[in-house]
Structure formats: structure tokens, C-alpha cells
């Protein structure tokens, strides 16, 4: 009954919040790295103005920090295929790669964008691929093309077609929002005057678990993105928080205070059945996160005094291993998708920085020079870390590449934005 009330409200809010404008603005700083020059030519029969696909492809590649855009504004007519490419022009402009494409309207009204990624050195096509979508999905079509180009050239998966989630706060109005990774197509999943924290995408990207204070104390809710339907999955006495999906999407590790102080439990993702306690300590145990194989749990605990990051094999829960030693305060562990890197937040001389640890060697490095960093989360290709920080008294989002060379800021027009989380590959 409670859930049905939540469900209909959420669905209503979801529908009223549709918008296709970028609500968060991107600013990119790339520090001293070589960028690959690429010429994305206008696509034949492309949409007009900001509905054109090829400029979005180009902007995506530049946003990655790994590419620079070669000027193509004087290309007319746009060649639909390799035959029409004037190689002398692109050699003169030092383009390593050239992209050509054309857009056709299919009988079902959909758009089909076919593109070729051309290697300028040997004048050959590396990729020849097409993506189809409804006319409203022109941005997503462009993001998929950029992903294919990015993967072909760098060997890493692209993340332009992925989505991010975050929370915005203006006055007392908080919203849980989902947007494309470039900040466009922002949609509010929930708007409330009460706090919302810890959104976490399900592994398939179809559901979101998060903590809401709407019923006056923290509870864990799972919401289906497509329908807006919500279900309370942890509503035990006290506080319910810090959901973490198991890799198969069937279970959630959560933090409950039903037996006293904050401890980690396992529940079914549909809220059925009783919670099973995973760990026991005299301190606060929180912020659980599963390893990609689901066998190991990383978490924050103050069992040894201040908060530090630990990991524990779930088949021997009595022998956790402490991972952080560099500071009196280390929190918010998150793993790279391959499980090899750990990002977290550490306090150093009163400042809170995003850190990166190579789990094989134990080597750590500070990734930021801001002072109030929070909630780092890996891009699904493991190459970027998205986090929140504070700038001029406002909460903003920022991105740093794991090699530290590329930095981006994502700011809203007003208010604060925080608790970012990067969705999975689609």
C-alpha cells in the first residue's frame, strides 16, 4: 500500500520532468597531453542546426580529452562515402582520421546514420557501421557513433552513450536526476523536500537504488527507470542506507541500524525475505561495494578508530583486510569495472581529495587539488572518475581521467549538485 502511493507519485513526477536541454554545463581542461586530430565531416542529409548528428560526434570525441577536432566547416558538399574525400585537404590539416557519414529516413520514420571511420595515413576505412533510432534520439545515435570511433582508435570502450545520475538541491528542493553523460536529456526521477542520497544503478542500468528521507527517516528504495515505479526494499527500525548491488542484480548490500549501530546486511533486491548480517564490528561499517565477481566486499569502517577502507572475502567474513593507511580519514570506496583500481576520498591536512589506489601494488595518488571532494565513481570504461566537489560555495560535479591529464567540470545554473554515479554501458 505504501509502495503503491510512492509508485503513482513517482510516475507522475517522472513524466512531468522530461526535458532535452543540457541542464549541466561542461567545461573541459586537458593538461599537456597529445591529442589525436580527427576530422568529422558533415554527414550527408544530416539534421539542421543543433539536430545535426556529426557535430555531436565531434564534440563527444573532443570531450574525451583524447582527440582534437580538425576544422571541417568549409566542406561542401559533404561526401557520403570514402570516394568523395579530398585527402590532400586532410593531410594539409594534419588529420590522422576522417569520419564521413550519411543520414537516411527509414520507412518507419526512424533515422539511420551510417558512418565510416577512415585512416588518413593509408586512406582506408577502419569502421563501417550504422545506428538507427527515432528522430528524437539523434543525440544518442551520435553518442553510439562516437563510442564506436573511440573504441576503434583507443582500444577502450567509449562511454558517450552512457548516462549519469546525481542529486540536485535548490533551497530545500532535492531531485534525483538522470542525464546523458554530456548533461543533456536530464530527467528527474524524484523531487522531494527531504534528503536523497546514495543513488546506485542496477548492473543492467534499468533500476536505481537510493536512500530517501521522505518518510522522515532513511529508507532504501528501488525505482524502475522506464516506469517510475518505486518499491521500498529496506524499511527496518532505525536507519536504512548505503545500497550496493550485487553483480547479478539480485541482491543489495545495505547498512542498517536495526540492531544498534551501522552494520552491513544483505537483502534481496525486491525487498523479500529477512536481511542477513554480513559483518560484525563494534564500529560503524558502511559504504559497501562488491568486487566485479561478487566474492569480495569493500567497505568503510571506523573499527580501528577513524574511518578507513577494508575488504573482506565474503566466504571468510571474520578476516577483513585494511587497505588505507595514509590518513586518519579514508571513506567512499569504489572499484573500477575490472576490479584493479580503487578510488576513495582521503582527508589530508584538513582537505578531502579523491584518491586512486592500484590494488596490485598498493600505490596511491591524489587525483585532485580541490578540498571538499566526495563520492568518486568510475566511468564504465574505467578511464575516468566522476566525483562531486565544492567551488565558490556551491556543489559541482567534476571528472578526472585516471591518468590525471584530463579534467572536466559540470556545473548547474543554480543550487548544488552532488552524489554523482555513472551508469553502466548500454
Amino acid at each position: 500500500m505504501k509502495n503503491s502511493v510512492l509508485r503513482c507519485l513517482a510516475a507522475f513526477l517522472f513524466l512531468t520532468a522530461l526535458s532535452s536541454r543540457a541542464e549541466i554545463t561542461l567545461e573541459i581542461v586537458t593538461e599537456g597531453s597529445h591529442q589525436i586530430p580527427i576530422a568529422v565531416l558533415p554527414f550527408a542529409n544530416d539534421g539542421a542546426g543543433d539536430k545535426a548528428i556529426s557535430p555531436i560526434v565531434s564534440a563527444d570525441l573532443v570531450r574525451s580529452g583524447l582527440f582534437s577536432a580538425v576544422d571541417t566547416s568549409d566542406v561542401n558538399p559533404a561526401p557520403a562515402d570514402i570516394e568523395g574525400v579530398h585527402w590532400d585537404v586532410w593531410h594539409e590539416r594534419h588529420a590522422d582520421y576522417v569520419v564521413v557519414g550519411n543520414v537516411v529516413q527509414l520507412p518507419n520514420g526512424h533515422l539511420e546514420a551510417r558512418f565510416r571511420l577512415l585512416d588518413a595515413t593509408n586512406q582506408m576505412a577502419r569502421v563501417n557501421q550504422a545506428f538507427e533510432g527515432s528522430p528524437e534520439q539523434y543525440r544518442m545515435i551520435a553518442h553510439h557513433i562516437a563510442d564506436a570511433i573511440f573504441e576503434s582508435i583507443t582500444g577502450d570502450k567509449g562511454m558517450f552513450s552512457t548516462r549519469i545520475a546525481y542529486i540536485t538541491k535548490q533551497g530545500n528542493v532535492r531531485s534525483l536526476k538522470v542525464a546523458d553523460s554530456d548533461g543533456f536529456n536530464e530527467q528527474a526521477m524524484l523531487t522531494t523536500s527531504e534528503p536523497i542520497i546514495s543513488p546506485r544503478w542496477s548492473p543492467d542500468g534499468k533500476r536505481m537504488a537510493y536512500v530517501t528521507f521522505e518518510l522522515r527517516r532513511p529508507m532504501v528504495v528501488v525505482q524502475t527507470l522506464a516506469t517510475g515505479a518505486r518499491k521500498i526494499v529496506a524499511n527496518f527500525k532505525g536507519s536504512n542506507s548505503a545500497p550496493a548491488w550485487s553483480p547479478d542484480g539480485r541482491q543489495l548490500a545495505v547498512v542498517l541500524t536495526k540492531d544498534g549501530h551501522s552494520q552491513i546486511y544483505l537483502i534481496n533486491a525486491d525487498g523479500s525475505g529477512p536481511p542477513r548480517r554480513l559483518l560484525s564490528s563494534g564500529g560503524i561499517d558502511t559504504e559497501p561495494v562488491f568486487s566485479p565477481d561478487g566474492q569480495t566486499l569493500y567497505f568503510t569502517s571506523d573499527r580501528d578508530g577513524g574511518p578507513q577502507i577494508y575488504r573482506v572475502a565474503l566466504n571468510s567474513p571474520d578476516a577483513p583486510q585494511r587497505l588505507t593507511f595514509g590518513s586518519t580519514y579514508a571513506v567512499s570506496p569504489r572499484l573500477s569495472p575490472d576490479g584493479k583500481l580503487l578510488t576513495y576520498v582521503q582527508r589530508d591536512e584538513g582537505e578531502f581529495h579523491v584518491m586512486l589506489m592500484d590494488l596490485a601494488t598498493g600505490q596511491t595518488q591524489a587525483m585532485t587539488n580541490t578540498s571538499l571532494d566526495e563520492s568518486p565513481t568510475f566511468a564504465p570504461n574505467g578511464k575516468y572518475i566522476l566525483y562531486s566537489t565544492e567551488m565558490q560555495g556551491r556543489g559541482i560535479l567534476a571528472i578526472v581521467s585516471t591518468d590525471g591529464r584530463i579534467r572536466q567540470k559540470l556545473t548547474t545554473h543554480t543550487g548544488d549538485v552532488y552524489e554523482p554515479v555513472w551508469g553502466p554501458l548500454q
Partner: protein
Amino acid sequence: MKKTIFALAVTSVLAACSSTPPETTSAPVAEKTAAAPAHAPMAAEQPAVKPMLYPPKGVGGALGERSIYYDFDKYAIRDQYKPVVDAHGAFLLSHPASKVILQGNCDERGSREYNLGLGQRRADSVRKVLAAKGVKDSQMETISFGKEKPRNPGHNEKAWAENRRTDIVYQGE
């Protein structure tokens, strides 16, 4: 009893959501006004002396204080705030009908989830002292707001010090 709690819960959801779509605000308000007359005459018929549920406004000394402040990442009650806890303990013991919600809060630094746990510890530390004095469990409830409801929205030491606290909130006040 269960039903009342549920009704409250639903209203709070509606209230929470109604700030966005203005169309929905009318419904809960209408319900409230319809319900009010049923209770009002009852209250009027029973002007009997009610037990005091919270310390009177303007009371001085430790009982007039409602907040206990902490050091960064700490939940131990500092000596200077022990008289405050003692005074409220004495009040609760002598007023068994009164109830408090102990609300733990943190400053904006560090992780939201860890701070939620820390705020809970702060509230629990007050509860433990009160329980040791003999205050009944049924008179106390704890909740943590973590760093989500700062009293001072600033980003400096003064604001942080103000936000690291447990509030003693009496029901009915």
C-alpha cells in the same frame, strides 16, 4: 496505532512531493481541514490538567539548552555538555509521559553515508547516557540526518562546529 503511523507516513510523502507539482497540494490540505472539526470539540470538552511534555519555554540553565556539540569525527559527549544531558535526563525521569527524538547531525565534510552513521552514533551516545540514568527506552527515539540538514549552510569552521550536534527534540513541542 499502526494505522495512525501509516496515515502520517502517507501524508508526509504527499507533503514531500507536493512541493513540485502544485496541482496535488489541494488534496492533503482538504483532508486535514475535514478531519479537524472531529477532534476539536473533544479537546474542548477535556480541559483537564495535562502532564507537562516538554520543559517550558524560556527555562534557563542546562535544561534550556537543546543541543550537544561535538569535535570533528567524534561522538563522545564533551564535559561541558554533560550537564545538558543530565538536566534532560532528570526532566524525562520526572515526566514519564514526555518523549524525545534525539537527532544526530554532522558537518558537511566527508562522505554522506559515513556521516549518516556518525550522526546515528552521536544520537545513540546521548541515548545511552539517558538510559543509564533510568530514562525508559519508550521515551526516546534516535535518528541521524547525517550532513543532510545543516543548521548553518556556511562552509567554514564556525558553520561546521554548529552543525556537529545532537538535538534533543521533545514531542508535541
